[in-house]
């Protein structure tokens, strides 16, 4: 069975600095998808960034980028130029290559951006 582990329950960063959130996963699949979702306080969860396992190039979305290490089964999220609005809980998630789109989530990391 697939598992997703986020080993950092809480992190903090100063505004404008860079922070990296860690995520590791376990799977025997060769093709799959990885996601980072953001849940701001009292607001709906939204997708931040996603990565297809067969693509070598790391995904980037503006200030958000990932470091995908397939052999190490690692998928970290880097937030550059942190902003107060980045304060949220971040979830790493895994999905097998199938039509169902079922997600397996990690435990979450609460990120606080300090002014």
């Amino acid at each position, binding site marked *: 069975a697939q598992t*997703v582990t*986020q080993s950092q*329950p809480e992190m903090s960063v100063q505004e404008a600095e860079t922070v990296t959130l860690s995520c590791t996963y376990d799977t025997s699949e060769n093709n*799959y*998808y990885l996601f980072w*979702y953001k849940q701001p306080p009292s*607001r*709906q*969860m*939204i*997708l931040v960034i*996603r990565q*297809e396992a067969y693509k070598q190039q790391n995904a980037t979305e503006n200030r958000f980028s990932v470091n995908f290490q397939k052999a190490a089964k690692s998928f970290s999220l880097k937030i550059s130029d942190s902003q107060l609005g980045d304060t949220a809980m971040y*979830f790493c998630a895994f*999905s*097998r*290559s*199938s*039509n*169902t*789109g*079922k*997600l*397996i*989530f*990690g*435990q*979450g990391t609460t990120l606080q951006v300090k002014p």
Partner: protein
Amino acid sequence: DVKVTQSSRYLVKRTGEKVFLECVQDMDHENMFWYRQDPGLGLRLIYFSYDVKMKEKGDIPEGYSVSREKKERFSLILESASTNQTSMYLCASSLRLAGAYNEQFFGPGTRLTVL
């Protein structure tokens, strides 16, 4: 603007009561999901549905059932609520086409307390 709505933000019920949580999406998505979110455990899939009247168990279906009579609506039912079902419940939806790569859109969540 895409939207997933849930019938209540906060709900307080008594042990043994039958509880209905409703979710509606306006994006014509085939897939709909129910998760529960608990501190330190992340999100865990309860049930999902990939079409009207179709459903599949997720990772923690015990004590829950679901109903999907219309494409836009997916209901979660707690047949006899128990205190260990006190949790945050999140609904999500996604397109079936391109399956696992698709973004899931989440509702605001229902915080259920069972006394």
